[in-house]
């Protein structure tokens, strides 16, 4: 278990150091906007706002509602591409 933890820590560190994490983040955002995921989620947000009322909606409300839907609605192509990149990184850097 320790090995795993250490491995994870090392990989995370490497991700941040090399800037790969940022790159992956940007890539994901771009892809999600491109494929319309963002607009979909915004529509969902509107629903939540109408539900809770414009004045009283909180971040928590949104997060709780949106995150699970968001995770589910990511298109497969985007998921595949990202996993590929992560794998490539891992094979490169995992000793």
């Amino acid at each position, binding site marked *: 278990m320790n090995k795993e933890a250490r491995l994870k820590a090392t*990989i995370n560190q490497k991700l941040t150091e090399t800037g790969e994490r940022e790159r992956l*983040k940007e890539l994901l955002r771009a892809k999600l906007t491109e494929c319309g995921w963002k607009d979909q989620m915004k529509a969902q947000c509107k629903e939540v706002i109408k539900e809770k009322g414009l004045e009283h909606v909180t971040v928590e409300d949104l997060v709780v509602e949106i995150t699970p839907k968001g995770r589910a609605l990511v298109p497969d192509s985007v998921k595949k591409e990202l996993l590929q990149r992560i794998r490539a990184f891992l094979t490169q850097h995992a000793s």
Partner: protein
Amino acid sequence: MKMEEMPLSSPDNTKLEALMHDIYSELVEDACLGLCFEVHRAVKQGYFFLGEPDQESMKEFEIVDQPGVDIFGQVFNQWKNKECECPNCNRLIAASRFAPHLEKCLGMGRNSSRIASRRLARNNMSKSESDQEDNDDLNDNDWSYGAEKKAKKRRSDKNQNSPRRSKSLKPKNGEIGSSINSESHKYNHNTGISYESLGPEEVRSLLTMRCGVISEHTKKMCTRSQRCPQHTDEQRRAVRVFLLGPSAPALHSAELESHSFDIPDGQMSRLQWVESPNVSPSDSASSKASTNHPDSRRPKKKKTLSLNSGGGSGGLTEGSGSSAQSSLSLSSRKKKPKLSAAFISSIYDDLN
């Protein structure tokens, strides 16, 4: 859909896969959170719903689908049958013809020749030959170099008709309108004056005020001031001799100036003249030894003119020497009227 997976040859790989998914989930969650924050801020700042049309505007700008009306609800040709009263002539004019009518009526459009018709009307009533100088002032504005004369020919014609031109005249003289008429009849619209049509008095008065050099191309007299840079004093002198005879009286301005120039001084002044840096654009470009020094040389020029006429031409021309010759010959080549050739040949005769 199944993801492509590498063959699980070792437990390390599963760990790696798990790790991979962890990282992926983290990234996705990050994206979602980012979106939530963005939306929440937009809601609280009030710009979340700005991009969408609201109900009010939707109803206001709905597409209109009635017959006889366009999609905006406007009627085609709504004002076609309406008539308006012209403030100038008080007639009832159709709306679609109103703008062109105003143009002609007020005489302010591009194609309106109201000034022309006004002029013609005035000309029929009265004729006057005075105030040529004022006309010449106008001509001053329009005169241009010979090279550009053809290009600007039409423009000067147009300017004749513009209201600005006539307005600038009004404060000068009440008779300007009529004098323009007379001028337009006598002179060409090219803002030059044909000496043939002038009487002796007019010629004299013109020459005292204006440059008066006769252009080779158009046979018209220059209406610029005495100091016009396009002509040399030589040319002016030649024209005066030609038009007023060899015994031409000295021009008025000369008499007013100092009379301290003797014959030798006249020669000297001629030489100095020649070395002045001023170049008349009408002379050849290379010649710097032009005899064109407008302001201070005028009296000397007049003096020399009278000298010349008085028979002191021999001394004068000796003094001028080669430089005057060259400048004269140069200018004679370029823009001097044919008459001055006779003048020059007389100089050569004197020299020889």
